[in-house]
């Protein structure tokens, strides 16, 4: 059994004449520790799929099983526990708490785990030692995103969900962030599912899933995986 199994996921928005089928039956399996990239144009349903995997949105049909646990049967309380135990989230916007320092923002994530990673060590991995006592508004976009990544991974989640993590960053900073996610994936062995519309990022993934109009158009394992450092776009 695969670590993450997605079967027949359908998702509609609206009703009647204005009904829009965003996901039209998604089947997908991801191995533990795999780096999976969801690619696709705007409106293809990749973020919706990510949100459903993350338990912050509900599918109309289908099932998601993570490490043997089905999410569709869970009530809101259990879903929260599920997210707390298994998931880490990174968004395009960093969504850091403005009046907490870098270290404290990371601790916000650590608080959720019974066995969090060592915060100091993680700050080192993130390259934020010099900034750990700064507030978010004293940081650059890249540093803020590093901090957001730190917050997501400090609880050592089984799955790291990344929704356009480099969407708001310039080329160099984006590469830095991708390198960081790559490091995290390798160092801590988390499964990474990343939504992006940057085609180049597929090259660093283990698995590439291309969506269009709510359906998977392509789903393949990347044989020629590149290092984030070598990506170019």
């Amino acid at each position, binding site marked *: 059994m695969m670590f993450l199994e997605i079967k027949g996921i359908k998702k509609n928005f609206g009703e009647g004449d204005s009904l829009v089928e965003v996901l039209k039956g998604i089947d997908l399996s991801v191995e533990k520790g795999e780096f999976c990239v969801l690619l696709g144009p705007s409106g293809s349903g990749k973020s919706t799929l990510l*949100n459903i995997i*993350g338990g*912050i*949105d509900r599918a109309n049909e289908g099932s998601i099983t993570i490490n043997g646990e089905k999410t569709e049967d869970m009530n809101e*309380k259990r879903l*929260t*526990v*599920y*997210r*707390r*135990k298994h*998931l*880490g*989230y990174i*968004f395009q*916007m960093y*969504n*850091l*708490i*403005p*009046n*907490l320092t870098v270290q*404290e923002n990371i*601790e*916000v*994530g*650590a*608080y*959720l785990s019974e066995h*969090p990673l060592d915060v100091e060590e993680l700050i080192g991995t993130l390259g934020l030692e010099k900034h750990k006592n700064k507030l978010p*508004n004293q940081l650059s976009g890249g540093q803020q995103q590093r901090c*957001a990544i730190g*917050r*997501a991974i400090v*609880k050592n989640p089984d799955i790291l969900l990344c929704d356009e993590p480099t969407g708001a960053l310039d080329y160099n900073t984006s590469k830095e962030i991708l390198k960081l996610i790559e490091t995290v994936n390798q160092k801590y062995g988390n499964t990474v599912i990343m939504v992006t519309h940057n085609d180049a990022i597929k090259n660093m993934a283990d698995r590439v899933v291309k969506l269009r109009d709510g359906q998977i158009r392509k789903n393949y394992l990347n044989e020629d995986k590149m290092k984030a450092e070598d990506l170019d776009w």
Partner: protein
Amino acid sequence: MKNPLNKRLPREIRGDFGKYLVVFLLLVLCIGFISGFLVADNSMIRAYNDGFEKYNIENGHFLTEHKMNKAQKRAVESNGITLYDQFYVEQEADFGAKVRIYAKRDNVNTVCLMKGAFPEKENEISLDRMFADNHELTVGDIILLAGKEYTITGLVALPDYSCLFENNSDSMFDAMLFGVAIVSGDTFAQYTEDELNYDYAWKYDVEPQNEAEEKTVSEDLMSAVNEEVALKDYVPRFENQAINFTGEDMGSDRAMMIVLLYMVIVIMAFVFAITTSNTIEKEANVIGTLRASGYTRGELIRHYMAMPCIVTLISAVLGNILGYTVMKNICARMYYGSYSLPTYETVWNAEAFLETTVVPVVLMILINFWILYRKLKLSPLQFLRRDLSRKKKRRAVRLNPSLRFFTRFRIRVLLQNAANYLIMFIGIQFAYVLLMFGLVMQPILEHYQELITDNMIADYQYILNMPVSEMNDKYKLKMLFSMLQFEQNVETENEDAEKFSAYTLRTTDESYMLEDILLYGIEPDSRYVHLSLTGDEVYISSAYAEKFGLQKGDTITLKEKYEDKTYSFTVTGTYPYEAGLTVFMTRDHLNEVFDLGDDMFGGYFSNTEITDIDEKYIGSVIDLDSLTKVTRQLVLSMGEMMKLVCGFAILIFVILVYLLSKIIIEKNAQSISMTKILGYSRGEIARLYILPTSIMVVLCVLISIPVTSYEIGIIWKAMMSGMMTGWLPYWVPKQAYIQMFGSGLVCYLVVAALELHRISRVPMDMALKNVE
């Protein structure tokens, strides 16, 4: 691991210091004052209640025409009571006040020494503490009474005069013009018999079990005493205002204070809730992320509730400390300013602690929890998308495009902040109720004085003293003789004098405070009461009609003071008389109803002083001075308090408007920043973001003034009905409305200036930095 979100809390205080400081100060002051009040109130009530035993307060007293002999005393005491002589003399001080002087009591109604020493030598006196305070007299001073100098050796509290009612029938006490004092037994022995009033206090050998039994026992006792002696007055303790008024009044103030506190807490809770809602809107993305990461709704609710609860808790604790130390003394002074209470010891008051600490925190928790629970009920995704409306599809209100852009913009700001403005309206309402109460109290009293002056029946009303015994059927011969003698001696040559009959009955409607109603039997062609009365027509005074909501055709039922016998009268009309609760009928009718005899009369109306009737036949004189006693005492005891109330109301007004307009500016900080970038001037931005609040404040103020006036009218009537005897008509001078509007406007201008400053501090890069 401690929740790292908690680290935000001290920073939140630093970041929004102004807001937390004003809320904190308001809560500390409010809780402090009310805690102090409750502690003082409770301690003093305890001292007052303990005083019944500690000072062996009488079960009642009666006044007799003549000194009782031993046989009479024995006969009276055979009814299960012990009598104590409590004679007194009344002397006028050089400053016009009447002082009732007793010999130092050792057995019953023993005296509490507040300061100095008891009088021992001749010409030494101990004055009632409050009376002395009112006349700025203290130990060592000299007081001139009936031309004789007395040195004040001490200030005392007489337990049977915790409230300085001169007569039990008075609607209000007057601690300016009436006081009590004690002298040594030797000094008292020097007073002549003519000066003495034969007052006897009694204690039951076996205390009645309950009030009903006490009433029956006291009524039986009165009949028994009446058989032995000529009674001038008979006052069982449960009817004695000088003893009971204080306890009743202290209890009623307490309820009012607690309601006041809870209203402040509820308003502050809503202010906090609105502030927090605003923060939640601002931090929607963060909340979405936290929720997506696994933070539970409960954790976030607890986090956002922490600040209001901590602030309230700290305020409550500090407020209580302030209450037990400083405020308690201030509040005790307020009581000492109104009542002649004995010394008290501060008593730890668990109930006050509960009411001023636990209840405010619980209220804060409940209100904030309710609002936060609703607010945080949204899914993480909705927070991430900033889709914070619980309604499915929230459409923008359509505004007429022909409206000017600025007008439409302002309407949008108004709509966006509707909840804030609602709280603002409620807060302004609350502040205005307090403000108006503070502002109208004195005018109401002054107006009442004017009314009394304008429609006094006569400059003097002499109520003749007809001893109760003279009415006793059992001694018909004695009664006949007394009546003849009385009739001869109460005739006057004064041409202004006009006879009237009088009788006092008591109300029976228990939803109001029971009070005495004076029934006048007037001459058919009276020069003083302008009524053409015929037959059994009965008019009631306008004050009576207003207080009890009576009108033509209604039936009033009154009862004998000490008996169950009731009388019913149908109201023919209302006579414009505000000075008292009275009933008017023809003299013949009154004499017939009460079986007083055809020629019987009880007093004179006169516009000039009657000097040819012996004072001993004059029970009381109703003149301007006696009629304005209520207002004088109220001004004395409530004047300072009303200023405090006004100050507090203005403080609440400023704080609320400041907090809510601050929220509005903060909520729109990003848009303000953007308008700055676009090139809008400071004035234009103010017109967009401050003017809507200004319009709302003015509207709230304008609506609040008549609404408040109406509310105060209702409160006033309820207060008059349930807490006071007599009737003070509700009246608001135009000036009070102007003051309310003016103070509201001035307060807002101060706040608006602060907001203008706040707008100027919104940085332009805010809009650029926070673009998503």
